[in-house]
């Protein structure tokens, strides 16, 4: 086939936006693979503070996989929404694996002070966030979704509002309460 590399993903994305659930199944592994490769490349580079911007990776994946001339803002939001989920999974799986290897270490109470740079504690934050999000999702799935979309996917408030079919004000309200609850939950564990 002479298909351009971005044709497949772009087409699937357009189909997702038309309500085709089957297209999501096909889209997932492609985005997953791209994010995985981008993350690996990014991590090989020198990063004095060991941090990564998941939103930057998602954005990069989007530029590489999607033909922007064919999609609208809604398609774009769908991509980022799916990618956010994948990004979360990739990073959390990695953190859990890394921390499992450090078995026997004493996990100190989590601090959210930027000066702390011990590998295990910092990886532990991501795991704690993931656990807290799962707990939140049990009684408020909407808030957990919003956090995921914005934190891992980099969606703006407006984009998040569009994709969830609510107003930006609603998103802001959800966000501020979710953030408060997550902070407490992460401190407790």
């Amino acid at each position: 086939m002479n298909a351009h590399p971005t044709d497949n993903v772009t087409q699937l994305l357009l189909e997702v936006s038309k309500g085709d659930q089957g297209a999501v199944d096909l889209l997932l592994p492609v985005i997953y693979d791209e994010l995985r490769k981008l993350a690996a490349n990014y991590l090989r580079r020198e990063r004095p503070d060991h941090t990564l911007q998941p939103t930057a990776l998602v954005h990069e994946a989007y530029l590489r996989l999607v033909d922007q001339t064919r999609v609208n803002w809604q398609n774009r939001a769908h991509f980022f929404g799916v990618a956010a989920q994948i990004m979360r999974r990739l990073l959390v799986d990695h953190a859990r694996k890394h921390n499992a290897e450090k078995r026997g270490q004493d996990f100190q109470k989590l601090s959210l002070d930027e000066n702390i740079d011990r590998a295990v504690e910092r990886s532990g934050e991501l795991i704690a966030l993931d656990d807290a999000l799962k707990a939140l999702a049990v009684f408020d799935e909407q808030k957990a979704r919003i956090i995921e979309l914005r934190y891992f996917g980099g969606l703006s408030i407006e984009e998040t509002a569009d994709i969830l079919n609510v107003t930006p004000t609603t998103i802001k309200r959800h966000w501020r309460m979710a953030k408060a609850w997550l902070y407490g939950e992460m401190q407790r564990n």
Partner: protein
Amino acid sequence: MTPERWRQVEEIFQAAIDLQPEERTPYVCKACGDDTKLRRDVETLLLQHDSAGDLLEKPVYVAETDLSSFQSLPVWEEETDPMIGRRLGTYQIEREIGRGGMGAVYEAVRADNEFNRRVAIKLVKRGMDTDFILRRFRKERQILAALDHPHIAGLLDGGTTDDGLPYFVMEFIAGQPIYTYCDSRKLTVAERLKLFRAICDAVHYAHQKQVVHRDIKPSNVLVTSEGIPKLLDFGIQTFESRSGRRYHT
């Protein structure tokens, strides 16, 4: 934390945050009344709101040591739902079509395959079978049983699984959300209104039966390929597709 309690906390929290700091405590006291636990929950949350700082605003820390999880990954694995492939009565569950806080909705087919009839089965999630949720679930089933209308997705059957989880079986609607249906076919205003009127009729019918939907929105109205609109989801919890397996469009 139950969804109901959370909603109570939210109502007061959101209102309190919008007040001046000195107005918050009196407001919270008044709003909570005798419920000291509620007041504690709200006050704790308000404190946490003020302390949260730049949580969620910093970039993610990723340990550099081991890149193997980023290099050699198996294909994206879906969390296998034990319900997929299971038999429930005369139906065989094929795939998940939605998920909410209380449980999930699956697409299923008649196991005898003679009629190849597709249904949607709504099932309480294991671990969510508290009295509170079971009562809500049974109530939803009662509501659905009382509704019989051409534009409301109808209840067909119900039961309990071997492990005691209640479920009910509904008409499966293969269709598009109403806005997609209308836009993709470039329907005229008159044609759109015709669909709208049909749903109004359904809502009116439900109201006459003392049932309020409470979550009518375009994604809860599917239109079949024959052009018949159907109102879904009278559950108080909405069932949206969960991203990862099925993305909510």
